[in-house]
């Protein structure tokens, strides 16, 4: 029996693990008999779950192993004898008890199943031929397997308008709904966005939103996946394919660094759907809507399918070119630059979009072939690589079961959505104590102890807490979730706060909440200056073998420039070739002016990207790269968990994997890197990089890798992180507002902006101020004000928001319209902004 609401891999099935015969029965075991076979279940386990582990499938609709049972559908009725004679009981509501005897195949059970199915089908429209769920529908499957075979119902069925959109992404067909409470339970319990509810309870019970208040949850797509019928369908997938036409591989979402496990499904060599796969350590089967639907971007008109080049005149148009021509020109430019200005005139920005194998190859190309260490996968919008690579690391599970979680510099709902679901569950359901520091209210603020601090005064605020309660907090386990948060100030405040915690609570562990897909992989493959693959310092280069030890940066022992340094050097005309590895500095660097000057000042700009981003439009050569679902390899999530990517479709046009582009460039520069596929690259990684030595290709390809393999730096290397001394924020300027600029889930990011279903969900740029601040300034919601920072003056729309304290202005980073990054100057501790009325 298949339950198509979940994606099964075989073997083992996900979600409800089949018991491992080698596993010793639990000490607190409860002995039950299922269909004549004895089984030792866990104490308190629900009968339906115990049966599934014992290999007995009990049909069900409303039960879902990741949500609390409700007993709505009665499909799971089985005969249970707990000592007082057999009787029908819903197995999703009954915990096992010692000596329980269960018959899932008795005549009585069968009659109950037939009866329930007949009742469920009374009002079901049976429009399977035009239903997206047809072919993978639990109701269809179970009607065939457990149903009576025919209906006695001849009366008119219930009718509703079908389907109605309940959000931009989800349609609802109320005729098909069997009222299982899965979607509404998910919205309430898991997502915390109860925007759908059962209404008109009684004969006409139906799931609905409030009028004009759509189900605009970041997680709405999950309800489509768990709906056991075709009542909820995804607008982007509607009528796109039939399940039996679909081909699928398991992979990992690389849209953000949570690394949710997914199934990528295609039809006719096009990705048409992504589904969540349940793995215990990470996503529990859930996805965010961005990760679920941004595959659409692969088919956007902005997708680059062939190389583009500009004539040497510089101002000519980008026109299509052949790979040999584009590669020859790139190699030629590189050689000229190296000859004329030395290898350090070459710089590489970006790499967090890459696979581990891509990142390693580019890292090796830059260091050992080109000979430059000016390389940074973060765009001055992350955290110090030395810090990320040397901090003792925590897993998501550890964060969710810590005695105290401390969080700052991130609103996970906006940046790492499924991490938010995990943390929310820990805080709301499991009552894990969380202390959050944030300049503005975040999505978790109302559920935890939330401390407001002025932008720039985080360390102060954290130190205060440590002084008064450090001892108490330190007496238990502590996990710190730390991200970059607001881009309107340097990351030093955050780093100093981390250092303060390290000092006060030495056993605290850290979950780096960096955002981009494979940023952790990029850092671990050495895409940051002064750091080699595996987080090794130059002094340890010999551990990587002679290729690395003999490379120019290592030999000369001169760490290169980080992103800020590269941009400044480019702006000053000291970068002859700037390679953008999936980087879009104009959109992502928190200093628009500097990014502009850098792109203008760099000699030749080479963009390796999937889409023609604003920055790629400025490049001289654009090389098309394959995107998610189009390439093999591995990725690393924020915990350091390495998992395999599944290539599903061929990239459009002549786009190719980033590693291949690096290998060919090396070849044209006279070095044979010897890589023919990504497997060969991982082989080298696991051979030469000590950190990955127990993670050979065989292990990466084993079923074990489906949950991901945790590889963390041993922490015994030479790499040092010198935390900045506590930064002193300037005294509060009563006439200015302090800027907080963090990201939202939907913004102008390349993949989001190029996915038609998601693009419209991104908000226009606006400044959010405390309503009393608006009153003071004499403007109302939707009014306009001028904002003046040392960088520039912009005019923006304002709105009142209680979540923003007085004295602070919040502005979404990278939203359409006046950009927050125009106001920000890289490196300043806080961005003070004066307000002028118009």
């Amino acid at each position, binding site marked *: 029996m298949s339950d198509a609401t979940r994606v099964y891999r075989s073997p083992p099935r996900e979600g409800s693990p089949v018991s491992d015969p080698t596993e010793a029965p639990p000490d607190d075991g409860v002995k039950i008999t299922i269909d004549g076979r004895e089984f030792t279940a866990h104490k308190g386990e629900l009968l339906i779950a115990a049966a599934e582990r014992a290999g007995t499938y009990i049909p069900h609709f409303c039960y879902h192993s990741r949500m609390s049972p409700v007993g709505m559908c009665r499909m799971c009725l089985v005969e249970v004898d707990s000592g007082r004679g057999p009787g029908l009981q819903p197995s999703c509501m009954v915990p096992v008890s010692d000596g329980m005897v269960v018959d899932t195949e008795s005549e009585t059970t069968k009659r109950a199943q037939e009866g329930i199915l007949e009742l469920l089908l009374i009002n079901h429209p049976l429009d399977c031929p035009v239903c997206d769920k047809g072919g993978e529908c639990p109701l269809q499957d179970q009607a065939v397997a457990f149903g009576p075979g025919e209906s006695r119902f001849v009366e008119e069925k219930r009718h509703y308008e079908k389907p109605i959109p309940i959000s931009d992404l989800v349609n609802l067909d109320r005729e098909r709904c069997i009222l299982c409470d899965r979607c509404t339970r998910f919205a309430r319990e898991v997502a915390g*966005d*109860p*925007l759908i*509810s059962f*209404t008109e*309870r*009684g004969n006409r019970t139906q799931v*609905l939103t*409030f009028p004009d208040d759509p189900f605009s949850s970041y997680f709405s797509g999950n309800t489509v996946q768990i709906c056991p019928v075709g009542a909820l369908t995804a607008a982007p997938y509607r009528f796109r394919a039939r399940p039996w036409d679909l081909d699928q591989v398991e992979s990992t979402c690389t849209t953000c660094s949570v690394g949710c496990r997914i199934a990528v499904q295609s039809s006719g060599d096009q990705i048409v759907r992504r589904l969540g796969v349940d793995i215990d350590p990470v996503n529990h089967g859930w996805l965010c809507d961005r990760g679920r639907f941004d595959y659409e971007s692969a088919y956007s008109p902005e997708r680059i399918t062939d190389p583009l080049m500009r004539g040497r005149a510089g101002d000519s148009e980008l026109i299509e070119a052949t790979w040999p021509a584009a590669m020859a020109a790139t190699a030629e430019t590189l050689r000229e630059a190296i000859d004329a200005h030395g290898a350090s005139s070459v710089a590489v920005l970006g790499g967090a979009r890459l696979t581990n194998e891509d990142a390693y190859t580019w890292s090796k190309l830059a260091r050992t072939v080109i000979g430059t260490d000016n390389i940074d996968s973060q765009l001055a919008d992350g955290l110090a690589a030395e810090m990320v690579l040397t901090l003792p690391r925590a897993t998501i599970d550890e964060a969710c079961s810590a005695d105290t979680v401390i969080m700052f510099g991130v609103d996970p709902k906006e940046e790492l959505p499924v991490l938010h679901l995990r943390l929310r569950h820990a805080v709301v359901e499991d009552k894990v104590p969380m202390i959050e520091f944030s300049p503005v209210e975040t999505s978790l603020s109302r559920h935890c102890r939330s401390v407001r601090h002025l932008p720039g005064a985080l360390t102060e605020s954290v130190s205060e807490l440590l002084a008064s309660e450090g001892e108490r907090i330190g007496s238990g386990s502590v996990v710190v979730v730390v991200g970059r948060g607001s881009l309107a100030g340097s990351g030093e405040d955050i780093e100093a706060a981390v250092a303060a915690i390290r000092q006060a609570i030495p056993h605290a562990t850290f979950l780096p909440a960096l955002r981009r897909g494979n940023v952790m992989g990029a850092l671990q493959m050495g895409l940051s200056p002064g750091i080699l693959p595996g987080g090794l310092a130059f002094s340890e280069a010999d551990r990587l073998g002679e290729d690395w030890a003999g490379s120019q940066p290592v030999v000369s022992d001169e760490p290169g420039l980080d992103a800020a340094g590269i941009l400044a050097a480019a702006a000053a005309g000291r970068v002859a070739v700037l390679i953008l590895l999936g980087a879009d500095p104009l959109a992502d660097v928190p200093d628009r002016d500097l990014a502009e000057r850098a792109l203008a000042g760099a000699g030749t700009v080479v963009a390796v990207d999937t889409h023609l981003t604003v920055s790629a439009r400025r490049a001289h050569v654009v090389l098309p790269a394959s995107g998610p679902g189009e390439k093999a390899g591995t990725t690393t999530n924020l915990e350091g968990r390495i998992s395999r990517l599944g290539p599903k479709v061929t990239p459009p046009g002549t786009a190719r994997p980033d590693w291949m582009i690096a290998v060919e460039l090396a070849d044209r520069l006279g070095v044979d890197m010897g890589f023919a596929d990504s497997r060969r690259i991982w082989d080298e990684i696991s051979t030469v990089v000590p950190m990955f030595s127990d993670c050979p290709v065989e292990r990466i390809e084993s079923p074990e890798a489906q949950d991901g393999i945790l590889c963390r730096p041993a922490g015994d290397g030479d790499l040092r992180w010198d935390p900045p001394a506590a930064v002193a924020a300037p005294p509060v300027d009563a006439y200015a507002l302090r800027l907080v600029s963090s990201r939202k889930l939907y913004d102008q990011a390349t993949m989001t902006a190029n996915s038609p279903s998601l693009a419209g969900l991104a908000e226009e740029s606006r400044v959010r101020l405390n309503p009393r601040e608006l009153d003071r300034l004499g403007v109302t919601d939707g009014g306009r004000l001028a904002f003046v920072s040392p960088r520039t003056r912009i005019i923006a729309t304002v709105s009142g928001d209680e979540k923003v304290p007085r004295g602070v202005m919040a502005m979404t980073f990278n939203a359409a319209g006046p950009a927050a990054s125009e106001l920000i100057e890289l490196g300043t501790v806080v961005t003070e902004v004066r307000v002028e009325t118009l």
Partner: protein
Amino acid sequence: MTDHFTPANLDLAHEIIGRYPVKRSAMIPLLHLAQEQDGWVTEDAMRQIAELVEVTPAEVLGTCSFYEMFKRQPVGRFLINICGTLSCQLMGAEDLIHHAEQTLGITSGDTTPDGLFTLAVAECQAACTEAPCLQVNYRHRYKVTPADFDDLVEELRRQAGEGEGPDPQSPETAGVPRHGVLSVARQHIPAERAAGPSSPTTNQGPPVWMPPPDAEEPK
């Protein structure tokens, strides 16, 4: 912030919310308050209640729509529910309903154009010994003959002609208050006599109103 309750009712709403340890518990009393203010529960009212008790409007709708007596469409000033269940049927309810429809010129479920009367056929009103019976704004009238019905309608018209009529909150009012007004007496517990809400999650002891075990028996 939705601005639907009158200032006086908003104060009342806050007082009501203050009675409960968990804000959302005040949802139903606030729905009654909204229905009292407007005669029915408007979307704006549901929106504001959601804000007041910190839930989503969808959750308020989910609760509100469960209860048939919360009207989500305007109803007349007087809602006349004629019982159509067994005992009343046997005692002439059908004729009474027919007569009512003829007299008011509407079919059951509708409202008269002047907005005075909404007519509905209802289920058992727990007054079978007094069949046939009806309710005007949930106030019973027993053993109603067609002639009684005409008198009733005339009396209600007269009442309505006197404008809003006597203060519905005054206990002296003998007439039928507007639809939505639940009772003529409102609960008001002066602060010094209120036990105050006690949180079910933090308070593990006996209920606050229970005298401590060693307290003296009241004389």
